[in-house]
């Protein structure tokens, strides 16, 4: 269990460019994001405002460079979570991926360097780019994929959050994956 001072210290170290610090934070972040998502899905009693935990809040602020973050409803809250996860993971992946290509980022110690997820770094980086492109033509599809992939919501849960039917989600997700794969395959620019 990380104490408050641990968190602060790790965030500082991370801020100074030590990616190892993020590795240590990540399991906690993962857990908390899941916990937050679950609670938000459970639609806790009204009046219970949606609040991220301190950790998640801080991490997000550092990542996004914002001074504060706000949301009005569940949709936006989940958007925030998805955004957070995406940023962290992609950021992490970019650094490691870049290092391997010798782009000048300081040498990371490779021993026992467990990546954060089962997804490979180049895939995460490529996905980030592809999502960016998809968002330009169809932001909703992009959001659906983020909620599924980065927050781990099921199709029913996504339907619930976005306020549409399950069938819509199923269809949109299917198409989204197709489009993303096309981008990932490296074909064709888009508009």
């Amino acid at each position, binding site marked *: 269990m990380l104490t408050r001072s641990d968190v602060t210290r790790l965030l500082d170290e991370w801020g100074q460019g030590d990616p190892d610090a993020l590795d240590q934070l990540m399991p906690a972040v*993962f857990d908390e994001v*899941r916990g937050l998502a679950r609670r938000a899905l459970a639609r806790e009693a009204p009046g219970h405002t949606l609040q991220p935990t301190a950790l998640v809040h801080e991490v997000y602020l550092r990542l996004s460079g914002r001074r504060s973050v706000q949301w009005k409803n569940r949709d936006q809250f989940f958007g925030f979570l998805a955004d957070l*996860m995406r940023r962290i*993971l992609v950021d992490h992946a970019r650094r490691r991926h870049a290092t391997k290509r010798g782009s000048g980022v300081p040498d990371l*110690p*490779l*021993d*026992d*360097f*467990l*990546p*954060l*997820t*089962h*997804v*490979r*770094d180049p*895939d995460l980086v490529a*996905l980030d780019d592809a999502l960016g492109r998809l968002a330009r*033509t*169809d932001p909703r599809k992009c959001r659906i*994929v983020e909620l*599924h*992939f*980065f*927050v*781990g*919501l099921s199709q029913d849960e996504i339907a619930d959050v976005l306020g549409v039917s399950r069938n819509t989600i199923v*269809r949109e997700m*299917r*198409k989204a*994956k*197709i*489009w*993303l*794969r*096309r981008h990932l*395959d490296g074909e*064709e*620019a*888009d*508009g």
Partner: protein
Amino acid sequence: MTPARWQEIDELLGRALDHTAADRPRFLDGSCGDDRGLRRELERLLALDERRDFLDESVFSVHAADPDVGRRIGPYETRALLGRGGMGAVYLAVRQDDYTQQVALKLIKRGMDSDEILRRFAAERQILADLDHPNVARLLDGGTTDDGRPFLVMEYVEGEPLDRYCDDRALSVRRRLELFLDVCSAVELAHRNLVVHRDLKPGNILVGKADGIPKLLDFGVAKLLEPGPADVATALGRRPMTLHYASPEQVRGQAVTTASDVYSLGVVLYQLLTCRLPNDLGDPDTAEDEKVRRITEQDPRRPSTMARARADAPRQLARRLAGDLDAIVLKALRKEPGRRYGSVEQLAEDLRRHLAGRPVTARAGTLGYRAGKFARRHRRGLTAAVLALIALASMVLLRGQALDQRERAVREHERVSRVTDFLSGVMDTFDPDQTPGELTVLAILDRNREEIAASLADEPRLQADLLDRLGAVYRKLGFFEQARDVLEESLSVSRRHVAGDEPEVALRLNNLGVLCYDHGDEEKAVDYLRQAIEMRRRLGQEGPESVRSLNNLATLLMHRGELAEAEELYRRGVDVRIRSYGLEHPYLATSLRSLGNLYWVAGDFERAEPLLRRALEIRRAAYGPGHTEVAAALDKLASVLDAVGRGDEAEAMWNEALAVRRTKLGRRHVLVARTQKNLAEYLLGQGEPASAAPLLEAALATFYREKPAGDWERAEAEGLLGAYWARLGHAARAGPCLETAYATLAQARGEQSIYSRKALRRLRELAGEP
């Protein structure tokens, strides 16, 4: 692509997805019309729907953070993480050109590029390449990834660790020992290749889910005993991670030898038998030093005691383990390497002896113990022998009454008490629960032999009879020298006092002949058996009881290559049996089979076939198709049919024989292995090594377990393995197998033996040698 265009395609894509795959082409026809570019685009997109990749799961998915899953490495693609070790991880992978072929791919950890690790990896690869054994996970391939990490590809064993396998299925002690023996034979092979495994434990012994065959994995920390270019310092191995299975010398960092493997196997055996570990190492918080101390100093509890202490163990378990198994396990677990079994082979031998009911070397070699073993094996027979002795003793008593009463009375009283003593002494030593100590059966028997000689000098018939019985007892207890002496004495007594031929004398001659044959004195055996046969002929006693002598002699002569005389004797046996039993009797089938076998050995297949066929028919009619005797006949006939070129029929017969034997005797029986071997030999000869391979593998597993190293059949099977490799063009593997096989076969029956020559010729043929 403009946004509008994109929308259009997206919309069509959605509708296309709504259609089933069968209907899509028509839908596309309708909606794309002439626009071929559009259609192509849609088809390409639809194809992407079929793909499965990381997008299908979320980052929270349980696969836990392994970047090498889903990666292409050489011609393979990793699919899942199977486990992690000190050097790296093992993945389940598939061949990219054949997704059904699953393999285990072992990859060095990232960043672990130190020389030592690389050297160990290379050593493992070399070790695995040399080990070809049905109970060792085979090495299939190896290489380097595109980022410079070495990898090994091995046979994927989908199975459970040995201890879990046994516990999940609540296997009996016998079954566990059988599986353990399989493992032993694999370790033996490694030792013969000068490799010490050093990390034997149930986690490294997986039992295949489908076939129940245990396989040894992970020679990763194994050490080649011969010092290679690697520096000597690493020979004093590092402390292994699983202390429970590590030998005292390993935890002390001292030299590790094959005896260390014996120890580890001892721990595994202990665990299989008691479901506990021999050394109580406390909990994870216990200091390392303390754990080491317990391993090196604390004696383990006897398995039977451990079993008794467990509340959930069946009460019979303690009794089952007491005695032999206690002794065997504890011997393997001795702290001093020199006091353990000298080799894994010896450990396996003792276990085999235990399973066969024979005395094990781990226990004190008192004759009372041996006698106890005998008693358990021959409970009914023993009673008959004892009863016979009692009967004879009473005859002695009755006879004695005719003579001077008072003197006789005294002598008889002595005799009676001696006989009674003898009998009770014999009974006592045969009681398994009594602690043997001062009693030695041999001494008792010897004493009584003298007694018989002394007091029955004037009753030759009785004397000879009693000596016969005594001889039988000696023989059953394994004292062949004495048995022979006594039987010869019995014979000379008969001869001295009985004129001419007598049926009992003929019987004694027969028994002596059999005894000598059993004991390797073929000259004498032939001599005695001939005399027995001649005497019977003179007595006009050529009834069924004489056939046994005829057959015994014939078999002996056949082994010595004197086929003509053997043929004559077998024929006589056949005639006698036809006369005595008619044409449909199973005894006749046996004689026909013997004669047929002779012709087979002599290469006279034309004569062999009808005889063996007739034998098969008789047996089928008498016993029904699913009988082991029928299977035996099928096996033999198949060999002959193969020899005369009727391969298809032969193959069908072998398959039938195999099915019957498997059902009746169980998959692991030696006779099943024999049929598997025969069939494999046939298939190799037909140029179908792929079909032969699984049979050969199964046969070898059984032979390795059940037969010692110099055994004939086992050597034949090993030779076939060599021929198999030769066929596949692996000269390097074929060579040693064939060499060993040739040497063993030549030695087992003598280089000039007809069997050896035949077998060697056949092997050479199969191996494609000129």
